[in-house]
Protein backbone atom coordinates (compact mmCIF):
# COMPACT_ATOMS: atom_id res chain seq x y z
CA UNK A 1 0.00 0.00 0.00
CA UNK A 2 2.88 2.33 0.72
CA UNK A 3 4.22 2.00 -2.81
CA UNK A 4 1.50 3.75 -4.82
CA UNK A 5 2.08 4.11 -8.51
CA UNK A 6 0.37 6.53 -10.83
CA UNK A 7 -2.09 5.58 -13.50
CA UNK A 8 -1.95 6.82 -17.10
CA UNK A 9 -4.52 9.58 -16.55
CA UNK A 10 -2.55 11.03 -13.66
CA UNK A 11 0.70 10.87 -15.62
CA UNK A 12 -0.84 12.52 -18.67
CA UNK A 13 -1.90 15.46 -16.53
CA UNK A 14 1.67 15.82 -15.32
CA UNK A 15 3.41 15.51 -18.70
CA UNK A 16 3.57 19.27 -19.44
CA UNK A 17 5.18 20.20 -16.09
CA UNK A 18 7.35 17.08 -16.36
CA UNK A 19 8.61 18.19 -19.77
CA UNK A 20 9.09 21.74 -18.47
CA UNK A 21 11.16 20.34 -15.58
CA UNK A 22 8.79 21.83 -13.04
CA UNK A 23 8.21 18.65 -11.06
CA UNK A 24 10.45 17.42 -8.30
CA UNK A 25 10.59 14.93 -5.50
CA UNK A 26 8.32 11.91 -5.42
CA UNK A 27 5.95 13.23 -8.10
CA UNK A 28 8.78 13.54 -10.58
CA UNK A 29 10.21 10.16 -9.64
CA UNK A 30 6.86 8.43 -9.96
CA UNK A 31 6.13 10.12 -13.27
CA UNK A 32 9.54 9.06 -14.60
CA UNK A 33 9.10 5.53 -13.35
CA UNK A 34 5.64 5.26 -14.91
CA UNK A 35 7.04 6.53 -18.21
CA UNK A 36 9.82 3.97 -18.09
CA UNK A 37 7.29 1.17 -18.00
CA UNK A 38 4.40 2.57 -20.07
CA UNK A 39 4.86 2.83 -23.86
CA UNK A 40 1.52 4.65 -24.27
CA UNK A 41 2.51 7.49 -21.94
CA UNK A 42 5.98 7.63 -23.50
CA UNK A 43 4.35 8.04 -26.91
CA UNK A 44 2.17 10.79 -25.48
CA UNK A 45 5.24 12.54 -24.10
CA UNK A 46 6.95 12.34 -27.50
CA UNK A 47 3.86 13.73 -29.23
CA UNK A 48 3.74 16.62 -26.77
CA UNK A 49 7.44 17.29 -27.36
CA UNK A 50 6.91 17.26 -31.13
CA UNK A 51 4.00 19.72 -30.96
CA UNK A 52 5.93 22.06 -28.69
CA UNK A 53 8.85 21.79 -31.13
CA UNK A 54 6.49 22.83 -33.92
CA UNK A 55 5.53 25.92 -31.95
CA UNK A 56 9.16 26.84 -31.42
CA UNK A 57 9.77 27.02 -35.15
CA UNK A 58 7.63 30.10 -35.61
CA UNK A 59 9.53 33.38 -35.49
CA UNK A 60 8.54 37.01 -35.10
CA UNK A 61 9.54 40.16 -36.98
CA UNK A 62 12.61 41.99 -35.85
CA UNK A 63 12.05 44.87 -33.49
CA UNK A 64 12.55 48.34 -34.99
CA UNK A 65 16.16 49.52 -34.68
CA UNK A 66 14.77 52.83 -33.41
CA UNK A 67 12.84 51.51 -30.43
CA UNK A 68 15.67 52.17 -27.97
CA UNK A 69 16.15 55.69 -29.34
CA UNK A 70 12.44 56.44 -29.06
CA UNK A 71 12.18 55.09 -25.52
CA UNK A 72 15.22 57.04 -24.37
CA UNK A 73 14.02 60.23 -26.06
CA UNK A 74 10.74 59.96 -24.18
CA UNK A 75 12.51 59.16 -20.93
CA UNK A 76 14.76 62.22 -21.33
CA UNK A 77 11.76 64.34 -22.18
CA UNK A 78 9.93 63.22 -19.05
CA UNK A 79 13.01 63.72 -16.97
CA UNK A 80 13.27 67.30 -18.23
CA UNK A 81 9.59 67.88 -17.50
CA UNK A 82 9.93 66.48 -13.98
CA UNK A 83 13.55 66.31 -12.85
CA UNK A 84 13.30 63.19 -10.85
CA UNK A 85 16.81 62.55 -9.56
CA UNK A 86 15.94 63.78 -6.13
CA UNK A 87 12.24 62.99 -6.39
CA UNK A 88 13.07 59.39 -7.36
CA UNK A 89 15.48 59.07 -4.50
CA UNK A 90 12.86 60.46 -2.14
CA UNK A 91 10.34 57.99 -3.58
CA UNK A 92 12.71 55.09 -3.01
CA UNK A 93 13.40 56.22 0.52
CA UNK A 94 9.68 56.51 1.21
CA UNK A 95 9.13 53.00 -0.17
CA UNK A 96 11.99 51.68 1.94
CA UNK A 97 10.51 53.40 4.98
CA UNK A 98 7.14 51.76 4.38
CA UNK A 99 8.81 48.36 4.15
CA UNK A 100 10.89 49.00 7.24
CA UNK A 101 7.84 50.11 9.17
CA UNK A 102 5.79 47.14 8.01
CA UNK A 103 8.54 44.69 8.85
CA UNK A 104 8.98 46.38 12.21
CA UNK A 105 5.26 46.14 12.81
CA UNK A 106 5.30 42.52 11.69
CA UNK A 107 8.03 41.76 14.19
CA UNK A 108 6.24 43.66 16.94
CA UNK A 109 2.81 42.26 16.39
CA UNK A 110 3.75 38.72 15.57
CA UNK A 111 2.77 38.28 11.93
CA UNK A 112 0.45 39.39 9.21
CA UNK A 113 1.43 43.02 8.77
CA UNK A 114 4.72 42.43 7.00
CA UNK A 115 2.94 39.94 4.80
CA UNK A 116 0.38 42.59 3.84
CA UNK A 117 3.11 44.83 2.49
CA UNK A 118 4.56 42.02 0.40
CA UNK A 119 3.60 42.00 -3.28
CA UNK A 120 2.49 38.77 -4.95
CA UNK A 121 5.83 38.27 -6.63
CA UNK A 122 7.74 38.04 -3.38
CA UNK A 123 5.87 34.90 -2.37
CA UNK A 124 6.68 33.04 -5.51
CA UNK A 125 9.73 31.11 -4.37
CA UNK A 126 7.95 29.64 -1.38
CA UNK A 127 5.01 29.02 -3.60
CA UNK A 128 7.06 27.20 -6.23
CA UNK A 129 8.36 24.88 -3.55
CA UNK A 130 4.97 24.29 -2.04
CA UNK A 131 3.53 23.72 -5.51
CA UNK A 132 5.57 20.57 -5.86
CA UNK A 133 4.46 19.50 -2.41
CA UNK A 134 0.82 20.23 -3.10
CA UNK A 135 0.86 18.57 -6.49
CA UNK A 136 2.24 15.54 -4.70
CA UNK A 137 -0.53 15.83 -2.13
CA UNK A 138 -3.09 16.03 -4.94
CA UNK A 139 -1.69 12.95 -6.54
CA UNK A 140 -1.87 10.99 -3.35
CA UNK A 141 -5.39 12.21 -2.73
CA UNK A 142 -6.34 11.13 -6.25
CA UNK A 143 -4.73 7.77 -5.78
CA UNK A 144 -6.35 7.25 -2.40
CA UNK A 145 -9.71 8.14 -3.90
CA UNK A 146 -9.28 5.48 -6.57
CA UNK A 147 -10.57 5.87 -10.09
Amino acid at each position, binding site marked *: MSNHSMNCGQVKRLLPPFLDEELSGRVREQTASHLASCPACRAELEALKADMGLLEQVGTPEVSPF*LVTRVMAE*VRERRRAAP*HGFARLAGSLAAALVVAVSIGAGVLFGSGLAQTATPVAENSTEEAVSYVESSAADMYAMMAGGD
Partner: protein
Amino acid sequence: MSHCPHSRGRTILSHPEVPVTNDADLVRKAQTGDLAAFEELVRRHQHGLFSYLYRMCRNASDAEEMAQVAMVKAWEKLGGFRGASSFKTWLYRIGTNLCFNLRTRRKPTEELYETMAAPDNERPEAAFQQKLREEAVRKALDCLPEDQRAALVLSVYQDMSYKEIAETLGKTVRAVDSLLFRAKSNVRKVLAEDRAKGII
Protein backbone atom coordinates in the same frame (compact mmCIF):
# COMPACT_ATOMS: atom_id res chain seq x y z
CA MET B 1 13.40 33.30 -35.97
CA SER B 2 14.19 36.38 -34.02
CA HIS B 3 17.58 36.65 -32.46
CA CYS B 4 18.20 35.76 -28.88
CA PRO B 5 17.22 38.82 -26.87
CA HIS B 6 19.81 38.24 -24.20
CA SER B 7 23.21 39.79 -24.18
CA ARG B 8 24.49 38.36 -20.95
CA GLY B 9 27.95 39.17 -19.81
CA ARG B 10 28.42 42.15 -22.07
CA THR B 11 29.60 45.50 -20.90
CA ILE B 12 28.00 48.17 -23.00
CA LEU B 13 27.90 51.04 -20.58
CA SER B 14 30.10 54.00 -21.14
CA HIS B 15 32.33 52.93 -18.25
CA PRO B 16 33.99 49.74 -19.47
CA GLU B 17 36.15 49.55 -16.38
CA VAL B 18 33.03 48.85 -14.33
CA PRO B 19 31.69 45.53 -15.58
CA VAL B 20 27.94 45.39 -15.24
CA THR B 21 26.63 41.99 -16.08
CA ASN B 22 23.27 41.61 -14.43
CA ASP B 23 19.99 43.42 -14.49
CA ALA B 24 19.90 43.98 -10.75
CA ASP B 25 23.08 46.08 -10.91
CA LEU B 26 21.72 48.08 -13.81
CA VAL B 27 18.44 48.64 -12.00
CA ARG B 28 20.27 49.96 -8.94
CA LYS B 29 22.24 52.37 -11.12
CA ALA B 30 19.16 53.44 -13.04
CA GLN B 31 17.36 54.09 -9.77
CA THR B 32 19.94 56.73 -8.99
CA GLY B 33 19.11 58.40 -12.31
CA ASP B 34 21.79 56.72 -14.47
CA LEU B 35 20.25 56.90 -17.94
CA ALA B 36 22.99 54.80 -19.55
CA ALA B 37 22.14 51.95 -17.19
CA PHE B 38 18.46 52.22 -18.02
CA GLU B 39 19.26 52.34 -21.73
CA GLU B 40 21.17 49.09 -21.38
CA LEU B 41 18.13 47.50 -19.70
CA VAL B 42 15.96 48.67 -22.60
CA ARG B 43 18.49 47.32 -25.08
CA ARG B 44 18.60 43.95 -23.36
CA HIS B 45 14.86 43.44 -23.13
CA GLN B 46 13.56 45.13 -26.26
CA HIS B 47 13.63 42.02 -28.47
CA GLY B 48 12.05 39.71 -25.92
CA LEU B 49 9.37 42.16 -24.84
CA PHE B 50 8.51 43.09 -28.42
CA SER B 51 8.26 39.50 -29.62
CA TYR B 52 6.13 38.54 -26.58
CA LEU B 53 3.75 41.42 -27.26
CA TYR B 54 3.77 40.67 -30.97
CA ARG B 55 2.77 37.07 -30.36
CA MET B 56 0.00 38.33 -28.14
CA CYS B 57 -1.51 40.92 -30.50
CA ARG B 58 0.07 39.92 -33.84
CA ASN B 59 0.31 43.48 -34.97
CA ALA B 60 3.82 44.87 -35.18
CA SER B 61 2.79 48.52 -34.70
CA ASP B 62 0.70 47.70 -31.62
CA ALA B 63 3.46 45.53 -30.20
CA GLU B 64 6.07 48.19 -30.70
CA GLU B 65 3.90 50.91 -29.26
CA MET B 66 3.13 48.78 -26.21
CA ALA B 67 6.79 47.90 -25.77
CA GLN B 68 7.68 51.58 -25.85
CA VAL B 69 4.94 52.57 -23.40
CA ALA B 70 5.89 49.68 -21.10
CA MET B 71 9.53 50.74 -21.02
CA VAL B 72 8.75 54.38 -20.35
CA LYS B 73 6.36 53.29 -17.59
CA ALA B 74 9.10 51.09 -16.20
CA TRP B 75 11.37 54.13 -16.01
CA GLU B 76 8.71 56.12 -14.21
CA LYS B 77 7.97 53.33 -11.73
CA LEU B 78 11.56 52.26 -11.23
CA GLY B 79 11.86 54.09 -7.93
CA GLY B 80 9.23 51.78 -6.47
CA PHE B 81 10.80 48.59 -7.83
CA ARG B 82 12.30 46.71 -4.91
CA GLY B 83 13.69 43.70 -6.72
CA ALA B 84 11.20 41.22 -5.29
CA SER B 85 10.91 39.77 -8.77
CA SER B 86 13.38 40.06 -11.63
CA PHE B 87 13.39 43.24 -13.70
CA LYS B 88 12.39 41.12 -16.68
CA THR B 89 9.18 39.70 -15.17
CA TRP B 90 8.35 43.12 -13.70
CA LEU B 91 8.76 44.76 -17.11
CA TYR B 92 6.80 42.01 -18.86
CA ARG B 93 4.04 42.43 -16.32
CA ILE B 94 3.72 46.08 -17.25
CA GLY B 95 3.59 45.00 -20.91
CA THR B 96 1.03 42.28 -20.15
CA ASN B 97 -1.29 44.74 -18.44
CA LEU B 98 -1.06 47.10 -21.40
CA CYS B 99 -1.76 44.25 -23.77
CA PHE B 100 -4.75 42.89 -21.83
CA ASN B 101 -6.18 46.40 -21.61
CA LEU B 102 -5.77 47.19 -25.28
CA ARG B 103 -9.36 47.71 -26.31
CA THR B 104 -9.12 48.39 -30.01
CA ARG B 105 -6.82 46.06 -31.78
CA ARG B 106 -5.51 46.67 -35.21
CA LYS B 107 -5.59 43.93 -37.80
CA PRO B 108 -2.85 41.36 -37.62
CA THR B 109 0.13 42.32 -39.72
CA GLU B 110 1.72 40.00 -42.22
CA GLU B 111 5.31 40.27 -41.03
CA LEU B 112 5.16 36.79 -39.62
CA TYR B 113 5.32 35.34 -43.11
CA GLU B 114 8.35 37.41 -44.03
CA THR B 115 10.33 36.29 -41.05
CA MET B 116 9.70 32.59 -41.31
CA ALA B 117 12.62 30.34 -42.00
CA ALA B 118 14.30 31.63 -45.14
CA PRO B 119 12.59 30.21 -48.21
CA ASP B 120 14.45 27.22 -49.53
CA ASN B 121 14.58 27.96 -53.25
CA GLU B 122 16.04 24.59 -54.02
CA ARG B 123 13.19 22.80 -52.30
CA PRO B 124 10.05 24.88 -52.81
CA GLU B 125 7.94 22.01 -51.54
CA ALA B 126 9.72 22.02 -48.17
CA ALA B 127 9.37 25.79 -47.93
CA PHE B 128 5.67 25.52 -48.65
CA GLN B 129 5.22 22.83 -45.99
CA GLN B 130 7.06 25.00 -43.49
CA LYS B 131 4.78 27.91 -44.31
CA LEU B 132 1.72 25.74 -43.77
CA ARG B 133 3.03 24.53 -40.43
CA GLU B 134 3.71 28.07 -39.24
CA GLU B 135 0.29 29.20 -40.36
CA ALA B 136 -1.25 26.29 -38.46
CA VAL B 137 0.65 27.20 -35.30
CA ARG B 138 -0.37 30.84 -35.62
CA LYS B 139 -4.02 29.87 -35.94
CA ALA B 140 -3.78 27.46 -33.03
CA LEU B 141 -2.34 30.21 -30.81
CA ASP B 142 -5.03 32.63 -31.98
CA CYS B 143 -7.72 30.25 -30.76
CA LEU B 144 -6.51 30.48 -27.18
CA PRO B 145 -7.99 32.79 -24.56
CA GLU B 146 -5.63 35.66 -23.74
CA ASP B 147 -4.32 34.31 -20.43
CA GLN B 148 -3.63 30.83 -21.84
CA ARG B 149 -1.83 32.34 -24.82
CA ALA B 150 0.26 34.59 -22.58
CA ALA B 151 1.30 31.67 -20.38
CA LEU B 152 2.16 29.50 -23.40
CA VAL B 153 4.09 32.24 -25.21
CA LEU B 154 6.10 33.03 -22.08
CA SER B 155 6.85 29.34 -21.57
CA VAL B 156 7.66 28.31 -25.14
CA TYR B 157 9.22 31.44 -26.60
CA GLN B 158 10.56 33.31 -23.59
CA ASP B 159 11.70 30.16 -21.84
CA MET B 160 10.29 31.35 -18.51
CA SER B 161 9.83 29.02 -15.55
CA TYR B 162 6.34 28.62 -14.04
CA LYS B 163 7.43 30.90 -11.22
CA GLU B 164 8.51 33.62 -13.66
CA ILE B 165 5.27 33.25 -15.62
CA ALA B 166 3.35 33.54 -12.36
CA GLU B 167 5.18 36.78 -11.57
CA THR B 168 4.55 38.13 -15.02
CA LEU B 169 0.85 37.33 -15.08
CA GLY B 170 0.20 38.04 -11.41
CA LYS B 171 -1.01 34.49 -10.81
CA THR B 172 -0.02 31.59 -8.61
CA VAL B 173 2.31 28.87 -9.85
CA ARG B 174 -0.55 26.38 -9.65
CA ALA B 175 -2.77 28.65 -11.75
CA VAL B 176 0.03 28.85 -14.31
CA ASP B 177 0.35 25.06 -14.36
CA SER B 178 -3.37 24.82 -15.01
CA LEU B 179 -3.30 27.55 -17.69
CA LEU B 180 -0.43 25.84 -19.47
CA PHE B 181 -2.10 22.45 -19.31
CA ARG B 182 -5.24 23.86 -20.92
CA ALA B 183 -3.28 25.95 -23.43
CA LYS B 184 -1.22 22.99 -24.58
CA SER B 185 -4.25 20.69 -24.78
CA ASN B 186 -6.14 23.27 -26.84
CA VAL B 187 -3.27 24.00 -29.19
CA ARG B 188 -2.64 20.29 -29.71
CA LYS B 189 -6.30 19.69 -30.47
CA VAL B 190 -6.19 22.30 -33.25
CA LEU B 191 -2.91 20.90 -34.60
CA ALA B 192 -4.35 17.37 -34.53
CA GLU B 193 -7.32 18.54 -36.58
CA ASP B 194 -4.96 20.12 -39.12
CA ARG B 195 -3.00 16.90 -39.24
CA ALA B 196 -6.14 14.86 -39.79
CA LYS B 197 -7.10 17.18 -42.66
CA GLY B 198 -3.61 16.78 -44.13
CA ILE B 199 -2.87 20.50 -43.74
CA ILE B 200 0.31 19.87 -41.80
